[in-house]
């Protein structure tokens, strides 16, 4: 029998037992998936977005299925930071895996407030800054302009000792400049990508399928786009990346790892297959064994690109 390949991944001074986590908002806010498997098997848990005040979320309908994906406009429904610290963190504290808390606000002040509340709280390993929710007012503002991204990330970084991952939208106008601004401001890593805005219409009623009209597209439909953004970011910058966007199987996760992703997050696929993360972890190990690799580090970022000449054949 082959020995178990080493899946350990170290980024932002945190060691993860494996590179598999969950995308914010797709894994409930507490124990919704605990009846299927132990959270300790995950490399990390990334929470649903927490905001300063409770949010009731958007009106119904909030979701609509699309080809190989779905649109959602949940609107960051959550009970707010006080409830989170009182009722959610104690639950996660008992679980032996890293907890990354996703936070969002409408102003720099909101983000700073949230970071301050979470700083030094036992059980919180890192923060993920949601600069890219398309379903709330001002949700995309902080990654629409590199100067705003810089200001926000810097302010949070100065507030907390926790590592921070900045979650960006593929809709950022000048993506690489926004990434550079986040890095200059001191982000410890990036989270790529959030959903992409889309919409659907019921032609019988001529009404939008979502009450909010537009929503975020997620699922396998956006995977090639996510992969491209992770590849671009990793090609230009030496920065840890938590990759997400349509990852449903080990094969999908491996694509992201091969282009350089440090962690991979299963997102909307959790809704369809509650065991998706467990299958991804097993599948990555199987792949490494089958191909004779002893550790995940041996394949990370090892995309083989070859220059092609004008005839389309491979040059030497």
């Amino acid at each position: 029998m082959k020995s178990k390949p080493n899946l350990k991944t170290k980024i932002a001074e945190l060691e993860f037992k494996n590179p598999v986590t969950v995308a914010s908002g797709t894994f409930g806010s507490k124990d919704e998936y605990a009846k299927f498997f132990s959270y300790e098997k995950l490399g990390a848990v990334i929470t649903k977005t927490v905001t300063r005040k409770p949010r009731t979320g958007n009106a119904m309908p909030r979701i609509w299925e699309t080809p190989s994906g779905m649109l959602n406009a949940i609107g960051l429904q959550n009970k707010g930071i006080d409830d989170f610290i009182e009722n959610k963190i104690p639950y996660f504290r008992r679980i032996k895996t890293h907890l990354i808390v996703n936070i969002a606000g409408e102003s720099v002040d909101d983000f700073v407030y949230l970071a301050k509340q979470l700083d030094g709280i036992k059980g919180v390993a890192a923060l993920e800054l949601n600069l890219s929710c398309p379903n709330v007012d001002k949700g995309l503002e902080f990654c629409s302009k590199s100067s705003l991204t810089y200001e926000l990330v810097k302010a949070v970084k100065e507030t907390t000792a926790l590592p921070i991952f900045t979650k960006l939208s593929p809709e950022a106008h000048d993506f690489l400049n926004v990434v550079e601004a986040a890095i200059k401001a001191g982000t410890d890593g990036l989270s790529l990508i959030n959903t992409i805005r889309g919409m659907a219409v019921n032609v019988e009623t001529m009404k939008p399928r979502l009450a909010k009209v537009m929503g975020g597209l997620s699922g396998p439909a956006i995977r090639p786009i996510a992969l491209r953004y992770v590849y671009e970011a990793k090609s230009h910058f030496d920065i840890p990346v938590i990759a997400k966007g349509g990852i449903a199987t080990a094969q999908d996760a491996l694509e992201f790892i091969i282009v350089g992703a440090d962690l991979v997050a299963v997102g909307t696929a959790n809704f369809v297959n509650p065991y998706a993360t467990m299958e991804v972890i097993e599948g990555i190990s199987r792949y490494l064994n089958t191909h004779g690799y002893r550790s995940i580090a041996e394949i990370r970022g090892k995309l083989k690109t070859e220059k092609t000449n004008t005839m389309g054949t491979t040059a030497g």
Partner: protein
Amino acid sequence: MRDEWVTILDNRKINQAYWKLSFKSSFLSRSVLPGQFVNVLLEDDSDPFLRRPFSYYRTKNQTIEILYEVLGRGTRLLTLKKKGDRLKVLGPLGKAFTQSAKGKKQILVAGGVGVPPLVFLAEYQRVSHLLIGCGSKGEVLPKSELKNVKAQVGYATEDGSYGKAGFVTLLLHEVIQREKNPKNLFIQTCGPHAMMEAVIKMARKFGIEGEASIDERMACGVGACLGCMVKTHDGYKTSCVEGPVFAFCELED
């Protein structure tokens, strides 16, 4: 709750409106109550992407029956499944209809996708009336499907081709009128939103208690996505975990 691969025993059209699907599972059929549901994965290749929720219609000797209407691409694909094909089924999910109507006469009001769970309830408990609304005679359930229902069954068809002509609320109104003290009734309803709204409105007018099974478009079925929220006096609640059955008094007007 468990996610299981099951093998289809039978899948056939039973009238103009419904198809009946059956499969065996000891876990998914154990201690299931009327009002609960399963979330079914039709294809394992991301298209269609989401699962489809279906109420339990009947469970007997570990065999589960689902009664479904063809309403879109997912259910159309389901009709193509044959005996021996496999489906991935997550269940049992959701809160059931109450097990205690406090000695009141239970009146069930059903339409469309609300028919299967209420037939299940009428087989499971001794209820007074099962009132069903549909478009026309071709959608009326065959007698064999109602043979274990002890209640008085009333049909209303929109085109008047069977039973009472008009909406099912006409039948409900007649039952209420015949009752000396309508507060002795307990209404349980499931069906199109417009039908349930009319039923709840009538119930409130006569001071009748009851409950409605409210389905909203859902993805996960386990309370994670927050896609299927129902507005209650206590804020939004998930239809999949905190519902789908809600008391009339919990719901906003």
